[in-house]
């Protein structure tokens, strides 16, 4: 039986990122994958002449739903119950896991099949099932690659994005036979052959499973419809073949009406995989007698979401439809991959969602997440529900800093307090500039400052620092009456002292 790994113990981002950056295979896999998907997304988004209106519409629908979430959740419960489903409410991961494990146990199964789901990863459901002696088989191809490879997901949509096809072949050959149908011995790394091996391996599990577990992309209040959007059809196998279906869904997945779905089904596939429409969109309403699962459970999961909703700036993160376009365009994520973030939600959205779900000021790794961004804004530009991720990142940085105030100030706090005082008056800044000018004369060599001790080494280990000039701008302004008495020559060629060899 497979033992699922978790992100527990991942070092803070700067440390984990350093290790990831040194992995040239990872760098190359990530660059290829993110650039390919970026180009595909840009092409199909470019076809829409109303993309801006669509994303505004999507944001508005989500914001409206979140402001009336209590009412809509009660409507969800009513609609689902009417359709023959059993609704469960889970405050946190432990409650949700217990509900699912108890249902599985009541059917005396030792295995379940799973549709790809972020909610169940967030609550580490597989770990809970394994502890109860129940094997949870991931049936999404990439999730299966991660599971077989005793690995962790590094992307919310393409969890094995950090693997290339020859690595996938090795994992299949080494691991598949241990847990079920093995691949052909002469398996190559041709995508069609790899998919064929996965299909044979999974079919055996689909035909045998009595219980399936899924998440949901959308949960529609007025009809009680659940919706799963996928590419492979393995999700639909799970949703239709077993007798029992348990769906764990975050409470922020609610949409008020069935017609709201059209907005999101235009945005999600284009933003996620760069397709106009995904191959499989499954919807179901409770139990249909004689067709599909005859026992349907829905677990409504909070697990920190109401806490996020209470944050006026941060609540926009609850609009997220898990498309992953922010990851695919992020220059930081592209270089480190997802594991360095230490969360099932990596990349830009993970850097805001994870700290809000977990809470800040508790552990160093979570507190490092909002700082894992250069604030370039590429994520906000592509987000189909207009989450201003840089704004929330900066907001959370403030919360992290505030959570550590009151103790003995660290070096950074002291530097920031000093800088704050200096920048309160022009005269104080002028004084600092005099010191900088002197320091420049002491440390400058060949027009630059080279390697310096810590903490400056964080800059100078790989980059030169420019030499502070003898005369600041404000000193020049005073001396020359705003340049009116400046007899210096006007440069027509690139300025000396800049990039000088």
């Amino acid at each position, binding site marked *: 039986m497979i033992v699922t790994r978790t992100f527990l113990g991942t070092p803070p981002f700067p440390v984990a*990122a350093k290790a990831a950056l040194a992995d040239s295979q990872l760098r190359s896999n990530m660059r290829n994958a993110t650039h390919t998907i970026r180009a595909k997304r840009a092409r199909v988004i470019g076809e829409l002449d109303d993309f801006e209106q669509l994303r505004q519409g999507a944001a508005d629908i989500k914001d409206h739903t979140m402001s009336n979430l209590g009412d809509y959740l009660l409507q969800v419960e009513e609609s689902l119950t009417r359709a023959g489903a059993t609704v469960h409410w889970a405050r946190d991961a432990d409650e949700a896991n217990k509900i699912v494990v108890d249902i599985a146990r009541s059917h005396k199964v030792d295995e379940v099949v799973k549709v790809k789901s972020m909610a169940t990863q967030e609550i580490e459901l597989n770990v809970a099932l394994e502890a109860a002696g129940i094997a949870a088989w991931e049936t999404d191809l990439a999730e299966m690659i991660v599971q077989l490879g005793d690995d962790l997901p590094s992307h919310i949509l393409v969890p094995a994005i950090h693997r290339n096809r020859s690595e996938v072949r090795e994992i299949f050959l080494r691991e598949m036979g241990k847990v079920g149908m093995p691949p052909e011995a002469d398996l190559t790394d041709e995508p069609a052959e790899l998919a064929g091996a996965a299909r044979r391996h999974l079919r055996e599990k689909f035909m045998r499973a009595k219980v399936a577990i899924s998440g949901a992309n959308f949960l529609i209040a007025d009809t009680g419809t659940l919706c799963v959007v996928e590419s492979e059809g393995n999700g639909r196998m799970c949703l239709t073949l077993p007798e029992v279906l348990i769906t764990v869904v975050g409470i922020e997945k609610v949409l008020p009406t069935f017609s709201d779905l059209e907005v999101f089904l235009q945005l999600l596939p284009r933003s996620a995989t760069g397709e106009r429409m995904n191959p499989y969109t499954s919807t179901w309403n409770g139990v249909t007698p004689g067709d599909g699962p005859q026992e349907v459970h829905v677990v409504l999961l909070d697990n920190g979401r109401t806490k996020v909703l209470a944050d006026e700036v941060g609540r926009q993160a609850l609009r997220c439809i898990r498309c992953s376009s922010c990851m695919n365009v992020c220059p930081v994520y592209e270089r480190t991959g997802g594991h360095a973030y230490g969360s099932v939600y990596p990349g830009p959205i993970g850097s805001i969602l994870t700290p809000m779900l977990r809470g800040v000021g508790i552990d160093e790794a979570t507190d490092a997440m909002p700082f894992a961004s250069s604030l370039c804004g590429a994520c906000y530009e592509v987000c189909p529900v207009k989450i201003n991720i840089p704004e929330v990142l900066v907001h959370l940085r403030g919360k992290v800093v505030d959570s550590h105030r009151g103790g003995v100030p660290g070096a950074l706090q002291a530097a920031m307090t000093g800088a704050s005082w200096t920048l309160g008056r022009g005269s104080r800044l002028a004084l600092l500039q005099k010191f900088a000018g002197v320091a420049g004369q002491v440390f400058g060599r060949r027009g630059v400052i080279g390697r310096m001790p810590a903490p400056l080494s964080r800059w100078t280990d790989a980059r030169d620092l420019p030499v502070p000039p003898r005369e600041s*701008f404000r000193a020049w302004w005073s001396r020359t009456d705003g340049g009116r008495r400046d007899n210096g020559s006007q440069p027509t060629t690139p300025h000396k002292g800049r990039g000088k060899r």
Partner: protein
Amino acid sequence: MKVGLFVTCLNDTMFPQTGQATVRLLRRLGVEVDFPKAQTCCGQMHVNSGYVPEAIPAVRAFVDAFAGYDAVVTPSGSCAASVRHQHPVVAERSGDTTLVRGVDSLAPRVYELSEFLVDVLGVVDVGAYFPHKVTMHPTCHSTRLLGVGDRPEKLLRAVRGITMIDLPEAEECCGFGGTFSMKNPDVSVAMGADKARHVRESGAEVLVAGDNSCLMHIQGLLTRQRAGVRVMHLAEILAAQEVAA
């Protein structure tokens, strides 16, 4: 029109030539720009590092220095964006309603250099001469936060003698990111190394941008590599003129 120059703390302290070029350029275009000495910094280093209350003195100094001007021009896309998007947040946090009102009335009058030239002065050809091969890094805050669009590029293309070369993956972040460059130096350098490689491969002699912060980072990598590519601020190229022999 009374125009104030917000030179920014970085240019003031490290790159006075950019401020001087801005003054020369604006004067040549008939704008008598003033430099109020009470100015210090936009405060974004503090805000972006999570130290919002510590940014209040800088924002107060900014409002005190520039309240009396009809327009404020700054040779930095990043600092202009901070004034527009972050000053209201900082002022709100201060609880000082006078500061909130001061910020609200001042922020819309603050322009990044290319915005001021194209939108306020209505010029594209500023009469510059710069006979070199130049490539441009558009900078994230100019393009994504301010939305300067093609204004810098238009201004550069109108410069006599210049040869503009496209920068591959130009819109990608250089990896500076303020204190990100110190908190996450390895990722910052990895991003900057790719940017520097694109600059070298472009074959340009000069890399230009509207922000010296990004340029300081990219230049630090280029000089460490002895790349022989120079970096210049947009203002310096636009101020450059042919000198009579």
